């Protein structure tokens, strides 16, 4: 770290134009070796969005191939590689780090009123691990890629001849540690770096969500790491633990994998729910309904998520005793999720809603997550799952929850904090249009797949019966629509960087602490320790025509 440039010891108070975290230091090394959580958050955001673009290209290729039965543009082998790459990139490089590592890193310490995360170097190290994991994925591509599906099921993953299996597994292993260290950092930060007055129940709900997520990251990810390590060892040394032909147990692999990966789907959705809580409250300018219920339901989901993993294994040969148990427990997970939906809707009710882009994304989330969650219940029902397992119904389900919910929340959050991160306003009109396009395109793409699946179209298939073609064509057209929505988003966001209006400190009227510092925030977050109030008390915030932002009119008496 000795290469870091020296900094002025005690600067005077600056305006965002003369000093902020973006221009505080210059040069690429000052970014890549930064210890500032905001910059690390930005670096993650850039990485995640680039990966999303790459994963999206694979998705478009897969969808295009499925336009016709048999070969359309690529052969079957390549198809297997492409859907696997799509899944692995989207899960491990995009959705898992997207909210906690990218937005969370930027927002968490500021929301908390802290100067940084507890371990800034570890935070940078996590980011470097993320980069290394991404590089491993690229190496895997060069070495022949992989066709195992993102789940790496054994014994196929230990026997396939695809050349890139080991590099990508090493990559996912590394990404796992990146995720663990981020989670560890967040837990310690929330426990130990809260300023005076920031009690647990004054924490914004996004922080509760990040906290619950971090618990899952720390408790579940090591199991994935060791499992993948065993797969590598199995490939290299043929130890046979997961290989039935050697007396090993492939179902054990699935237990291990889902012990991580079911909680992992909550690593994706819980922080998304946290963002939605913020968006709904801020953009309807109304005290959040049932704060404690939302907070505790995050933690409840985190804990429950550890005892339902077997619902992915109903047809794997898992015993009927465990099938029954897992099915029953899975239903209980729906309860805390439903609690949240209920609370959000109650918050909206009689709120003074600003129908802007973040709010649109939040509303989209509520619709899509409801569909995704409810279809999860269909899948968690034992006998229906026997029919639906490994069909497009499952594909539709998890896209509704992963893309329609987690990713949509990420994009909504990105818009919400965009003025704070970049100091620029994006084009609101284009934002709303793009959101509408994405929403429509998404539903055309994936609702069709529910029908495909319930009619029996298996997932991960290259070829299909002609009667399925109409659905596939509709779905592919939907995916093109959705892609154009995202491209539009990318365009106006980039444009805003160049010529966007300067953002005020508080463009939306948020009451959490990040809206108290300038946009973009100064290098030190806060010049003096912020006053901590109720994060959802909007009564003193009023629109100020001159600054085109919200200002606090009567500061709330600090009730520390």
């Amino acid at each position: 770290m000795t290469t870091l440039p020296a900094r002025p010891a005690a600067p005077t108070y600056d305006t965002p134009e003369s000093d902020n975290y973006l221009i505080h230091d210059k040069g690429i090394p000052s970014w890549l070796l930064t210890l500032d959580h905001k910059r690390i958050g930005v670096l993650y955001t850039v990485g995640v969005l680039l990966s999303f673009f790459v994963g999206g290209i694979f998705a478009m290729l897969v969808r295009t191939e499925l336009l016709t039965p048999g070969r359309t543009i690529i052969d079957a082998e390549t198809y297997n590689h492409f859907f696997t790459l799509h899944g692995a990139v989207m899960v491990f490089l995009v959705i898992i780090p997207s909210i906690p590592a990218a937005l969370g890193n930027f927002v968490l310490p500021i929301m908390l009123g802290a100067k940084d995360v507890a371990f800034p170097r570890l935070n940078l190290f996590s980011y470097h691990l993320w980069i290394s994991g991404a590089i491993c994925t690229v190496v895997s591509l060069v070495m022949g890629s992989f066709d195992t599906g993102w789940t790496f099921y054994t014994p196929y993953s230990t026997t396939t001849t695809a050349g890139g299996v080991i590099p990508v597994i090493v990559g996912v292993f590394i990404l796992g540690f990146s995720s663990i260290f981020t989670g560890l950092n967040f837990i310690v930060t929330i426990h130990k770096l809260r300023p005076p007055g920031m009690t647990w129940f004054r924490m914004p709900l996004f922080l509760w969500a990040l906290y619950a997520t971090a618990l899952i990251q720390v408790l579940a990810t090591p199991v994935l790491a060791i499992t993948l390590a065993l797969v590598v060892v199995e490939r290299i040394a043929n130890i046979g633990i997961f290989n039935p032909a050697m007396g090993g147990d492939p179902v054990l692999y699935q237990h291990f994998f889902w012990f991580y990966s079911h909680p992992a789907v909550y690593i994706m959705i819980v922080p998304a729910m946290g963002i939605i809580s913020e968006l709904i409250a801020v953009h309807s300018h109304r005290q959040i309904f049932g704060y404690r219920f939302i907070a505790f339901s995050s933690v409840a989901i985190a804990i429950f998520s550890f005892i339902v993993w077997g619902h992915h294994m109903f047809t794997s040969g898992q015993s009927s005793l465990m099938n029954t148990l897992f099915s029953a427990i899975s239903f209980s997970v729906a309860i805390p999720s439903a609690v949240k939906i209920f609370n959000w809707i109650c918050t909206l009710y009689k709120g003074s809603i600003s129908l802007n882009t973040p709010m649109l994304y939040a509303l989209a989330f509520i619709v899509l997550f409801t569909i995704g969650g409810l279809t999860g219940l269909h899948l968690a029902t034992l006998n229906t799952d026997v029919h639906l397992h490994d069909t497009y119904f499952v594909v539709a389900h998890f896209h509704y929850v992963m893309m329609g919910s987690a990713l949509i929340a990420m994009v909504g959050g990105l818009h919400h904090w965009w003025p704070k991160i970049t100091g620029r306003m994006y084009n609101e009109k284009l934002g709303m249009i793009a959101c509408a396009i994405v929403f429509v395109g998404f539903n055309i793409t994936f609702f069709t797949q529910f029908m495909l699946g319930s009619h029996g179209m298996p997932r991960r298939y290259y070829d299909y019966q002609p009667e399925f073609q109409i659905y596939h064509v509709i779905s592919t057209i939907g995916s093109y629509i959705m892609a154009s929505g995202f491209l539009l988003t990318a365009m106006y966001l980039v444009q805003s960087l160049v010529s966007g209006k300067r953002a005020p400190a508080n463009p939306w009227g948020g009451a959490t602490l990040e809206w108290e510092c300038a946009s973009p925030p100064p290098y030190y977050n806060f010049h003096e320790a912020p006053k901590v109030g109720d994060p959802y008390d909007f009564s003193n915030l009023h629109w100020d025509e001159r600054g085109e932002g919200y200002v606090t009119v009567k500061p709330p008496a600090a009730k520390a």
Partner: protein
Amino acid sequence: MSAHAPAGDHHAADGHDDHGHGGGHGHHNAEYPFLAHHFETPAQQFDSAKLGMWLFLVTEVLFFGALFVGYAVLRNRYPDVFTYASAYLDTTLGGINTAVLILSSLTMAMGVYFAQTGRKTALVVCLWLTMAGAAGFMVIKYFEYTHKFHVHLVWGEGFYKPVTDDGGLQSAELSSKAPVPLAPAQTTMSAGTVTAQQLAMPAFVQMPAGEQTAIAPPAAGPAGMAPAVIDAKAAEHAADPATHGDEALHLEDAAMPPNTHLFFAIYYAMTGLHGIHVLVGMGVIGWLIVRAGRGEFGPKYYTPVDLVGLYWHIVDLVWIFLFPLFYLID
């Protein structure tokens, strides 16, 4: 695994981390030069480091935990494999290693005590003793491993490859008398195997191949178990290089249950991962020795010693379970 080493390092390194938030936070604290800018008090910094380390230890627990689950599932599935194969492990060496690790944990704990009380020399001595314990453990482990490799008590297919490098002289002599199907020219089987077989079952050697297989023993069952265990134990107790030929018997042992290689697969997986942790531990203890020698630790600041100590104890803790689960099955 590379991820592990920096973790301890990072918590500690943060103690010296000053990336210069201004407004009065950026400069070194005169009273506590180790205090990072984003902490208010040494206690807050220490508590944070401790919490971070405990969280890291939990990830270690789950990291090993999954392997323990794998162990349990395999053992539940093949109880006789575990009973049978455990006898091939050397209880004496395992026991010594357990004691070595416990003592090194004790010296580590004493090291923390001396760091807290500012006794530099005693701290360095304790750290060296801990290091010696770790090295001793690895040396013993090395002998255990190489011995097992030697007689093909390994994972996977290697377990079923006849041992070829024992008693080379005898094999050359005896292979001329070997039954036809075993001739090197006709099968991939090597001469050494014949040796092992002949040593084990001299009565079969002169028999035609057909009869030889006809005498094949019945599938493993409780009845066949007892003598095998006794044989294997005898082999174990005579752990002496001169008797390697006898230890190569596992392939010739009629009572060996199918899938015995899985015992060794999980044995190497778990002890191997544990061994890697010991090596990492030696690395960070070495780093502590350097820093302690420079007098960096004392009653005010000893966080790195404390954290490495916690890591070292968890390594000990894992072994405390590995020892009975692998070495002491009857």
